């Protein structure tokens, strides 16, 4: 099967600011992909490139085997819920459904009306009068009811309260379970994604730090705690992600597909949050060094 999103050396520059650089990814189909990273890491840029709202300034991107937004058929296959879930303030909920029905050949009207009823939204209500959570649900309904093969959501729950957040995620999961669509959603909070994602991309400092199946990532990352030692002395198969040292003790996070067999230290599993933080800390450290050099 073709990859859902396949990028090669993908980059995007805004004027002089490089928002995304050298991004090479191949996301297998049928996954719920979490895209995490700090604010300004390039998450929105990557997702907007994937749905064709932005064009790359370098490299290539293919979504479902074609260039994003290359024609009506391609747009029909990808659903997108933008950050802050924009809707037409002057149009009613029913108008939004009518809009979806008229603009999407694959529109599933039964699904859309059932969801609106389930959410308890008044079809005559203007979208501008809805709460943030209701508006997000309406935007999600529009994206789902066009029956996309790939659904992309850019920080969909960032502005929602915890209850609305959970409701939103539940709807999303129901949809993916029923329709076997691939989903990519971004957040700056791992907690939002932890329960729902089976594939993870960590984006920081405009670069992809790590990407892979969640299970595999958890299985291959380890925290080693032991007597202070130089990270360079680890065996070849161990990739050191992050190291912190005190006078007597080193804590090192390594990636290794081989089991760790080192009697000199204790080995712990990482949870997803620790793993993401390790990569983000490392990216921040790398990102800082050249800045210091230039300002000296």
């Amino acid at each position: 099967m073709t990859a859902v999103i396949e990028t090669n050396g993908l980059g995007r520059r805004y004027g002089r600011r490089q928002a995304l650089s050298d991004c090479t990814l191949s996301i297998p189909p049928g996954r719920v992909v979490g895209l995490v990273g700090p604010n300004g890491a390039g998450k929105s840029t990557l997702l907007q490139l994937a749905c064709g709202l932005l064009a790359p300034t370098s490299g290539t991107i293919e979504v479902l085997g074609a260039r994003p937004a290359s024609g009506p058929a391609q747009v029909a296959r990808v659903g997108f819920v933008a950050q802050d879930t924009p809707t037409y303030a002057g149009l009613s909920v029913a108008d939004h459904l009518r809009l979806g029905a008229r603009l999407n050949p694959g529109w599933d009207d039964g699904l859309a009306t059932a969801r609106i009823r389930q959410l308890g939204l008044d079809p005559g209500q203007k979208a501008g009068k809805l709460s943030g959570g209701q508006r997000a649900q309406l935007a999600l309904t529009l994206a789902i009811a066009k029956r996309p093969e790939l659904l992309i959501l850019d920080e969909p729950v960032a502005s929602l309260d915890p209850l609305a957040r959970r409701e939103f995620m539940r709807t999303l999961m129901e949809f993916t379970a029923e329709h076997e669509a691939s989903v990519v959603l971004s957040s700056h909070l791992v907690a939002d994604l932890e329960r729902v994602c089976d594939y993870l991309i960590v984006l920081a400092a405009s670069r992809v730090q790590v990407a892979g199946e969640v299970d595999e990532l958890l299985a291959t990352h380890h925290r080693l705690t032991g007597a202070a030692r130089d990270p360079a002395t680890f065996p070849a198969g161990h990739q050191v992600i992050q190291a912190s040292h005190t006078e007597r003790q080193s804590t090192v996070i390594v990636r290794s597909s081989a089991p760790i067999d080192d009697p000199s230290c204790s080995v712990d599993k990482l949870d997803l949050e620790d793993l993401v933080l390790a990569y983000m800390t490392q990216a921040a450290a790398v990102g800082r060094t050249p800045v210091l050099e230039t300002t000296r």
Partner: protein
Amino acid sequence: MTWLTWRQFRTQAWLVLTALAALAVALTVTGPNLARLSRSTGLAACQANCEAAADNFVNQAMTVVNSRVYVVALVFMFVLPGIIGVFWGAPLIARELETGTHRLIWNQSVTRTRWLAVKLVGVGLVSMVTAGVFSLAVTWWAAPIDKANLDRMLPMVFPGRGIVPIGYAAFAFVVGVTAGMLVRRTIPAMAVTLVVVVAALVATPLYLRPHLVTPVSFTAPLDTSAMQSVRITETDMTVTGQVNQPGAWVVSNKTVTPSGQPFTGPADLQTCGRANFSKEGCTAWLASLDLRQQASYQPASRFWALQWYETAVFLALSALLSAFCFWWVRRRLA
């Protein structure tokens, strides 16, 4: 897409169309009476030397009500392009970009080219039809008055008659759309649109219309017995002769000395001075200078030629701007 475009546009459409409907009522109520007067005074049938019939018609026709309708219609035709550009053109794209809804709509199964095409062509055609229908109505209503006044070539009347309003409407609308696309915020886009449209409409009679067809030029001895204006001061004197072309639009009218220099005086204070001014003496002195009149004008017969050319220029500008919009929405806008 058509449905959505109309759904978003209908409030603004009704606002403008309601105002136009009020004007339409005024025109239909008063128009037939004007036409009747034009026939009864002989103006309608008159082919040449119509001054008497025209005076008679104007005396009877220009009642308080008709004068007001005439002025309102004139003003309306002047501001209509601005209204179309500011209220129909500028918000069309700017509001979507401002509220972020372009990201919603571009992810329905519609390419952004088609999205722009439907909006641009749909609302653009409504603008042109609106302007066309109202220009037709006003042109019909004012036809006898224009015939009596012989002024439809003049810059105050010309833009509100015939087919040029269609060109102006298309142009103003596309200027609004383009400004909205570039500025990305509704209110600033409206301001930019207003400035550009007003500048274009002011520049047209100054720089464009006189040159659409080469004006008729002539140089003739200045007829000092029938002057259009004479201005005398202590140090200089300017005189302007008459251009005896009924209904023509005088583009330039200069008085020069036999050597070809512009005539600036000074006046002979013996005959033209304030102290011992005599009209005959001053006129005779002026005649002795052997001045010449250099003038150019667009004759009344060119009304429709100028209308067609000017409309074509504005439609061509609109087409260019539209092409730019399509290029921009595909390449630059995101």
